[in-house]
């Protein structure tokens, strides 16, 4: 799991970094002393897990979570036990570690994160995505396999543990990940323009700065994906 650490205290970042270094499944990509820098980073990088301090000046951990459209898994780290109840209101928060963080407690939190990742990655018995050909995609919704014409899909949006598939005639919400459906779609038609969005390249109406218009939806284009998108355009 790729992770980042957000804490205004360097001592805390170093301790969490050390605890992470002993976990094979954890890869610390970056650490940040404040939430604003992390938000900029997350606009351009996909991250599976965030270690997040709640008590930071100006922009608290909860402010940070509220600012994310599709937050990854989050483990809160704090010296204050009083926020635990508030933490339970967020689906993305998988654990709550009180500082100083012990090795045993940290390992339990990582185990939870791994279990959560497996749940999302594994095929659910009730809802999943499969393809039978280049033209058809089957989604399993409430134990019914529903066929979708791939060409009719114009937008796919990640929403927590679900993806929202928009087609010309109907929309579908499926328990799956953007990465999984991306692997099922033909590359010459679909392009991931943001960590939360895949669009049908043929349905683009216009592109403006860091957004693209698909039907009536204005979709953000992340800086890291913009070059790839521009390369594929037949520019005059």
């Amino acid at each position, binding site marked *: 799991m790729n992770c980042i650490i957000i804490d205004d205290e360097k001592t805390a970042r170093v301790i969490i970094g050390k605890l992470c270094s002993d976990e094979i499944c954890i890869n610390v990509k970056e650490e940040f002393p404040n939430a604003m820098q992390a938000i900029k980073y997350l606009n351009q990088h996909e991250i599976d897990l965030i270690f997040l301090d709640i008590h930071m*000046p100006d922009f608290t951990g909860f402010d940070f979570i509220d600012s994310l459209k599709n937050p990854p898994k989050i483990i809160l780290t704090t010296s204050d036990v009083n926020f635990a109840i508030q933490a339970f209101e967020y689906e993305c928060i998988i654990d709550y570690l009180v500082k100083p963080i012990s090795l045993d407690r940290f390992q339990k939190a990582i185990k939870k994160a791994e279990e959560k990742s497996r749940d999302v990655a594994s095929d659910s018995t009730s809802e999943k995505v499969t393809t039978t050909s280049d033209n058809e995609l089957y989604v399993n919704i409430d134990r019914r396999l529903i066929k979708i014409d791939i060409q009719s899909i114009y937008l796919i949006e990640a929403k927590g543990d679900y993806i929202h598939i928009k087609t010309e005639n109907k929309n579908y919400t499926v328990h799956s990940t953007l990465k999984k459906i991306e692997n099922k779609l033909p590359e010459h038609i679909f392009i991931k323009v943001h960590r939360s969005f895949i669009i049908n390249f043929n349905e683009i109406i216009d592109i403006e700065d860091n957004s693209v218009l698909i039907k009536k939806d204005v979709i953000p284009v992340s800086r890291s994906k913009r070059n790839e998108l521009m390369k594929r355009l037949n520019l005059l």
Partner: protein
Amino acid sequence: MEQPNKSYIDSLCQGDKDFEKQLIDIIQKEFPEEKKTYYDSKTVQDFKKTAEIVHKLKHKISILGLEKSYEDAGAFEKNLLDGNNKLQNKFESTLTNITNYLNQL
């Protein structure tokens, strides 16, 4: 009065001397800065800012195994947020205690 110790640091480092040195160096650098911020905030009687830095210092207090002082610091933080400075002397004794300990590490 309880004394700072390295129990937590030892359990974290598990014999990794390089990391232990790195961590202690960071604490030795960060603690005086936080302590200064505390006294600066106190001087201008900014209770909210003082509570914030007390909150941050609580982590160092706990890392150094000062369990009772940690509880007192939590109560002091709450007092500050309520607009009074009860337990201030106790908290400042803890800061002195840590300063002396860090100087001899």
